């Protein structure tokens, strides 16, 4: 850890701070909307998340008020359905995930010794999509047109027949909009963790929190697309009548359940993993010793990340699935208790072997341990099929879910917020107020939900707006409701404490908890660039092993302590060893993310109000904004026209073949692939299972034309690969012509596939077969068109001098899209054109 930069010592550290501030500083006023900095945007995510949490909490209070006594008419059945649906939706989609993503966005660069996330404009786009999507969704409450089919939107209850008003549309469009934000954050967190760790921070030296966030981000990337697909299909069914989930046309409502829970169960772990990451960060700090079994925790994280995708059917045990299949999912559901138990024992062992200090954050960690273990145990009970059948759709399930989610996410979150408050504000929270808040919350929570287990075992169904007197549930419901108000008082006290500490909290000293991780090497509150210089880290506990590190970093005595070039820079490192490979230069503040998100919001509202022409126009406008944004990259004058670096420093990433954009594209294509595989799953599922599915006697898509289209995209892909290979060898002769040739081949593919679609004469509103086929072809046409546009833009950039042998990076990124297009198009040809001809209906 001794890479002291002697040259920087001679610099004036104060001058260095000022220079870095000039480059990285946030603008004020209206221009603050252009900020792309992770610290500011992380805080915006969290503050917005807390606002939605309050909205969701008020909805919960309304529910408990309605259920406090039998035969109440405090709310009508329809309003009650809206309130419960929106409570679940707001808490899951607008609070839990964005809040934890916000925390990760704020912390990850600081923990791994970076100055920002790797795609800052994507952070900004994600934030605005989240904000606008959340506003659109919650506005439905004000006009009493909120979704009312439950937060899982089961068909046919959410279909046009049983939900004819706009509530379901608000949900489907709003949530899909918000999911752009989640996937964006997922992509850049993965790439940032893998490629921007500071010098020497090998994978096995990485803070555990980063492992947890890496797993969470990958799970978002893989887990969200099935729901995005389901939402697109259901919205298409509702808007234009394509019968994906209707038996009569050849669809199946159970397909929705599969797509929803393919997302929905991993979602629980997407929420739990970062929360467990907080716990694994806090316990060693307050126990005053390294965590016991770092490797075991890494293994447990990996196991949870995978196994949690194999549990989705345990939400569907009552829909009529073969017993053997139920047994598979029952066993897998029990299996996931193993990694959870590993972590619990690791935490207990660390506390046992250390000298725990019961400071305020630890109080919340202890609350988490108690509540989450109870929730985990009822989870194992629910994994058993016969018990699951007995309590299905009762308040027992509601109680279990809240034990897991509130215990597993909310308690660690508050622990984390208290722990990192000094970093956010430079001030300490009030122990007294905080302890009152904790005990009221803890007692109120258990009073509400422990009792609810009994209510459920006594048979009270969920999602009913009232119950009759004499059912035997009265006293339990009353106790739950009273306790829920105690819980609210506790949360209000916590929020009051946090609000007051900004004004009255005692100033915090440097590293107030004696933590081991790099975020505490920041100033408090942190500067926009995090660190003046980036250290070499060869240990899991940099601040324990070298307590003077914050001081030497602030003095500019480590790497990249230079600002004279005017660029926002940080290390790009090897994903495994952490050795520095290149300097990543980041874009500055920009209007494009806000403009693109605003255009997408208009698309969302236009689709909601069925003004499709306007939606089309603004979709094009959003596309133009996004492409204009992509133009300001690499050697563009607004990015890094000068490739100069200090002698001995590695090259700029845009002058190599392996920058973070390549990784971002790869991770995005994993998300895209998950969407595509979900689509193929839907096609084969309906083909196999749907009782009214009908394969046409004559296959509608021409094998010859689709084969020619496949040949065109393959040829275009070969041209791109060849020119990328040339760029790797510093050859750029004929680069522009090759790019235009590839684009022409891509255009030929799009033209041929479009012609095949035209000739097919599909009836997508009549049969599910034609509807699914149309969606697949539109998907291929969109991707083909996108590849053509991006390739043409690359050709233009060659002309401007932004791409070439000296700046060879970007065509390699586009080449990944071409590979993806070749693979998915041929898979589509196989699934939609060849297989039906081979095995028939």
């Amino acid at each position, binding site marked *: 850890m001794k890479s002291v930069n002697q040259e920087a010592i001679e610099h004036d550290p104060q001058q260095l701070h000022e220079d870095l501030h000039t480059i990285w500083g946030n603008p004020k006023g209206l221009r603050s909307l252009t900020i792309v900095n992770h610290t500011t945007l992380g805080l915006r995510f969290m503050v917005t998340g807390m606002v939605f949490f309050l909205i969701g909490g008020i909805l919960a209070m309304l529910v408990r008020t309605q259920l406090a006594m039998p035969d109440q008419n405090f709310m009508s059945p329809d309003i009650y359905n809206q309130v419960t649906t929106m409570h679940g939706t707001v808490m899951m989609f607008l609070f839990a995930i964005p809040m934890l993503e916000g925390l990760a966005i704020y912390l990850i660069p600081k923990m791994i010794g970076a100055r920002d996330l790797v795609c800052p404009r994507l952070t900004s786009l994600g934030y605005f999509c989240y904000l606008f999507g959340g506003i659109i969704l919650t506005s439905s409450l004000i006009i009493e047109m909120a979704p009312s089919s439950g937060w899982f939107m089961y068909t046919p209850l959410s279909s046009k027949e049983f939900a004819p008003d706009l509530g379901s549309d608000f949900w489907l469009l709003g949530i899909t909009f918000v999911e752009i934000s989640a996937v964006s954050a997922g992509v850049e967190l993965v790439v940032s963790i893998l490629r921007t760790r500071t010098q020497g921070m*090998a*994978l*096995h030296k990485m803070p555990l929190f980063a492992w947890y966030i890496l797993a969470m981000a990958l799970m978002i990337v893989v887990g969200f697309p099935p729901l995005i697909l389901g939402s697109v299909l259901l919205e298409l069914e509702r808007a234009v009548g394509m019968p994906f989930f209707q038996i009569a046309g050849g669809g199946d409502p159970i397909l929705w359940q599969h797509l929803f829970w393919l997302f929905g169960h991993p979602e629980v772990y997407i929420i739990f993993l970062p929360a467990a990451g907080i716990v694994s960060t806090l316990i060693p700090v307050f126990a005053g010793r390294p965590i016991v079994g770092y*490797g*075991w925790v*890494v*293994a447990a994280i*990996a*196991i949870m*990340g*995978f*196994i949690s*995708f*194999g549990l989705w*059917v345990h939400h569907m045990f009552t829909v009529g699935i*073969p*017993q*053997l*299949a139920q*047994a*598979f*999912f029952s*066993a*897998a559901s*029990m*299996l996931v208790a*193993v990694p959870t138990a590993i972590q619990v024992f690791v935490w207990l062992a660390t506390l046992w072997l250390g000298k725990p200090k019961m400071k305020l954050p630890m109080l919340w960690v202890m609350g988490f341990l108690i509540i989450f273990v109870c929730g985990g145990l009822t989870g194992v009970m629910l994994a058993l099929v016969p018990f699951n059948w007995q309590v299905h759709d009762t308040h027992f399930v509601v109680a279990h879910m809240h034990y897991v989610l509130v215990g597993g996410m909310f308690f660690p979150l508050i622990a984390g917020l208290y722990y990192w408050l000094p970093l956010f504000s430079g001030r300490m929270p009030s122990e007294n107020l905080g302890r009152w808040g904790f005990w009221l919350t803890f007692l109120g929570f258990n009073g509400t939900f422990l009792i609810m287990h009994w209510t459920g075992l006594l048979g009270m169904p969920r999602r009913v707006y009232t119950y009759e007197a004499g059912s035997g549930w009265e006293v339990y419901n009353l106790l739950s409701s009273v306790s829920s108000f105690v819980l609210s008082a506790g949360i209000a006290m916590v929020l009051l404490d946090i609000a007051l500490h900004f004004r009255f909290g005692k100033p915090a000293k440097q590293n107030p908890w004696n933590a081991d991780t790099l975020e505490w090497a920041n100033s408090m509150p942190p500067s926009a660039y995090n660190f003046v210089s980036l250290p070499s880290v060869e240990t899991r506990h940099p601040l324990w092993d070298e307590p003077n590190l914050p001081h030497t970093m602030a003095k500019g005595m480590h790497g990249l302590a230079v600002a004279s070039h005017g660029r926002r820079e940080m290390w790009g490192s090897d994903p*495994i*060893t952490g050795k520095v490979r290149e300097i990543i230069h980041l874009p500055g503040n920009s209007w494009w993310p806000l403009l693109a998100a605003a255009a997408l919001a208009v698309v969302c509202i236009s689709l909601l109000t069925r003004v499709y022409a306007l939606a089309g126009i603004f979709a094009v406008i959003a596309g133009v904004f996004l492409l204009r944004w992509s133009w300001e990259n690499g050697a563009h004058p607004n990015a890094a026209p000068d490739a100069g670096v200090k002698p001995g420093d590695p090259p700029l990433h845009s002058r190599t073949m392996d920058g973070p954009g390549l990784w971002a594209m790869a991770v995005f294509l994993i998300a895209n692939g998950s969407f595509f595989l979900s689509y193929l799953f839907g096609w084969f599922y309906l083909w*196999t*299972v749907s009782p009214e599915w009908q394969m046409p006697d004559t296959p509608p898509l021409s094998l010859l034309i689709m084969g020619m289209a496949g040949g065109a995209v393959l040829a275009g892909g070969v041209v791109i690969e060849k020119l990328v290979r040339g760029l790797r060898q510093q050859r750029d002769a004929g680069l522009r012509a090759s790019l235009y040739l590839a684009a022409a081949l891509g255009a030929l593919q799009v033209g041929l596939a479009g012609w095949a679609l035209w000739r097919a004469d599909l009836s997508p509103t009549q049969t599910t077969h034609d509807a699914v086929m149309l969606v697949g072809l539109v998907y291929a046409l969109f991707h083909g068109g996108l590849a053509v546009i991006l390739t043409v833009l690359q050709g233009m950039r060659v002309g401007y001098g932004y791409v070439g042998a000296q700046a060879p990076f970007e065509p390699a990124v586009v080449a990944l899209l071409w590979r993806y297009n070749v693979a998915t198009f041929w898979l589509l040809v196989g699934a939609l054109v060849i297989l039906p001809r081979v095995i028939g209906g």
Partner: protein
Amino acid sequence: MVRLHFTHPIHLIIGLTLWSLWFVAVYSGLSVVCAVAPPLPEAGALTGLNVALGGVSLITAVGLVALAWGGCQVAKQHQGRQRFHATVSAWLYLFSAFGVVFAGMPIISVPPCL
């Protein structure tokens, strides 16, 4: 192949990926056969489908155990980062094998399409 040596972190996910593929294969295989050509209910658990699913499970489990053993052997030869990757990967292979056996156990006794 050097990059795929047991000390490479890609092994942290290969075992669980194989578990996932096995899980998808047995679940989808079961579902398709039950939808297209279900065995007679009176055959109980002694059906060709159970045998096929059991065979796939056995092969997968044995393969995963072999990979776990390989990871253990390699881990002994290294220190530091490489040892860490090989050791954790070996445990993950072993857990994946256990996951195949545990989740696949009902194949022995449960009729497939009831």
